């Protein structure tokens, strides 16, 4: 395996959890809900996946557990913000803090244990092809799920009737409600989908990326996913590009350091956030484009009055 392949593989591994969490949050925000608790749901998925995988000895059951825990955590958010119409920003932030606390409690017995790693795919012949083999046919299963999610979500949002309805709720929940669309039911499902994705992203961390459990192992990746959604101006394909760009920058700077090229790594760590700010400034220049993509009801609670 040459160095180019090795670097590309490392980038893919670094980008996958960001991509999955961001694509889930994109659907949530398209429905008009702002869930800042991605980090909390992700870390719950990480602990759930690790614990169940080591108890059952099967990483696949761990993946399912990660998704389930992400959904359960998101349901708490959904109940508070949708059924009780609590403030979404405050609830999302508390969800992150809660997730970090509960996950360290749950995982206390499991810190430092060797984990079960979800194996890479291996097709006879295909995986051995130079360059494309390991990249296209030899990665971990969650990588393929992440790519499928991008295309699936893109198709769902822009090519299906249900997707159109979801976007219309995000743009004007009063009109949608007046048309008889069950706004809260749609939003519940969107938030749960976001939770499932965040949980899966967490599971990727504790079952593929670094097969172990340590407290707070998401280390801010949930926040990067949130930034990516804005960076992508709510378009799935741009989330894909953003996640890989971020992965490339963070892996590239490590390689640059190992080669002895002096790069201010602190600056590169801040790059995705700087890029988000720049993109925000740029898109706010073009009011029309901004209005088309930004869900107008983002973060506003909806209370059906009759």
């Amino acid at each position, binding site marked *: 395996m040459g160095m180019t392949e090795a670097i590309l593989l490392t980038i893919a591994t670094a980008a996958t959890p960001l991509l999955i969490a961001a694509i889930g949050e994109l659907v949530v925000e398209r429905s008009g809900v702002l869930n800042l608790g991605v980090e909390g749901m992700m870390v719950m998925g990480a602990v759930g996946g690790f614990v169940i995988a080591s108890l059952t000895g099967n990483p696949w059951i761990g993946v399912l557990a990660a998704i389930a825990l992400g959904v359960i955590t998101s349901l708490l958010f959904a109940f508070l913000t949708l059924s009780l119409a609590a403030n979404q920003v405050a609830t999302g932030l508390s969800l992150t803090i809660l997730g970090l606390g509960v996950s360290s409690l749950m995982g206390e017995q499991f810190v430092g244990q060797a984990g079960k790693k979800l194996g890479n795919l291996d097709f006879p012949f295909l995986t051995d092809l130079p360059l494309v083999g390991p990249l296209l046919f030899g990665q971990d299963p969650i990588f393929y799920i992440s790519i499928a999610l991008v295309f699936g979500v893109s198709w769902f949002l822009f090519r299906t009737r249900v997707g159109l309805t979801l976007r219309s709720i995000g743009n004007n929940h009063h009109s949608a409600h007046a048309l008889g669309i069950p706004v809260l039911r749609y939003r519940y499902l969107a938030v749960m989908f976001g939770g499932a994705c965040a949980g899966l992203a967490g599971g990727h961390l504790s079952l593929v990326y*670094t097969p*172990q459990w340590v*407290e707070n*192992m998401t280390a801010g990746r949930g926040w990067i996913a949130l930034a990516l959604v804005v960076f992508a101006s709510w378009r799935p394909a741009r989330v894909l590009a953003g996640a890989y760009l971020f992965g490339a920058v963070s892996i590239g700077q490590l*390689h640059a350091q190992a080669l002895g090229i002096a790069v201010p*790594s602190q600056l590169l760590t801040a790059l995705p956030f700087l890029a988000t700010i720049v993109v925000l400034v740029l898109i706010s220049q073009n009011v029309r484009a901004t209005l088309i993509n930004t869900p107008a009801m983002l973060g506003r609670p909806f209370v059906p009055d009759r």
Partner: protein
Amino acid sequence: MKKLLIGLAGVAAMSLGMAASALAEDPMKVCFVYVGSKTDGGWTQAHDIGRQELQAHFGDKIETPFIENVAEGPQAEGVIERFARSGCELIFTTSFGFMDQTMAVAERFPDVKFEHATGYKTSENVTSYNSRFYEGRYILGQIAAKTSEKGVAGYIGSFPIPEVVQGINAFTLGAQSVNPDFKLKVVWVNSWFDAGKEADAAKALIDQGVDILTQHTDSTAPMQVAAERGIKAFGQASDMIAAGPETQLTAIVDTWGAYYIKRVQDVMDGTWESQSTWDGLAEGILEMAPYTNMPDDVKAMAEATEAAIVSGELKPFTGPVNKQDGSVWLAEGEEAEDGVLLGLNFYVEGVDDQLPQ
């Protein structure tokens, strides 16, 4: 006015009474402030093991409350102050980034004694205690140079502070004592604890051809990556053999227990004084994990070096040593002063990296 005076007198009498009863029977409170979680598998876990040894040694004569996950910086001040108010007689603040906060609280509570780990500031009631981790890293360097086939090791650094720079320099000097051409690649991850980033750094270094990995970050992720890729690595702060049974050559293990017991005894005997302690392998504040996964001759060399450091015969920072740019730092036979080491901000010759400033 009279009422006020009587009231004040009452308060004074009550607090005197409380103080007296505290002296008479209540267990002494020795408090710990941790930067991470006590099960982090590295730095904080080593401190917590020390705390448990302390508790076991004195039994019900002391209480040892602790607070985990205290962020470095201004927020730490509130935590330390709460401890000081709650009747702690001795407070251990166990991370570099608690230094200024410890000094600030100590000034307001002159009767409480403070001990700050790995810093450089002291006062009437603040002691600074530290461990010469670099002694262990010199041994790691020697082992690396003996076992590496490619002659290049990878070093995952956290932050470019003197403690980490000491480690990199000592590792390089150790390696050069065996193989003068030995190369070291350094990657900074700007974090003490980010398993994913540490793993990425490990992969990047291995992809660039290093066949030995060492780290000054706290998670076991680099050890896992090394195991997966079939190269050897060293553990940090705690014995990490569980993460790489076939991979770990040895580890630097922090053992704070004996020091904690001694300092608490000093407070009990009334002999506690502010000081600046910087102990190493000889005093047992630092130990080497068993030498594993290496040939017998390498093991024998490592053990001999360890013995020489313990006896004081070998000091890692002894001349001739040049700075990275080739200028002379230590002349033949000259030993580095502790003051210089504590503020170390340059590399020695042979490190293949530019120190971030």
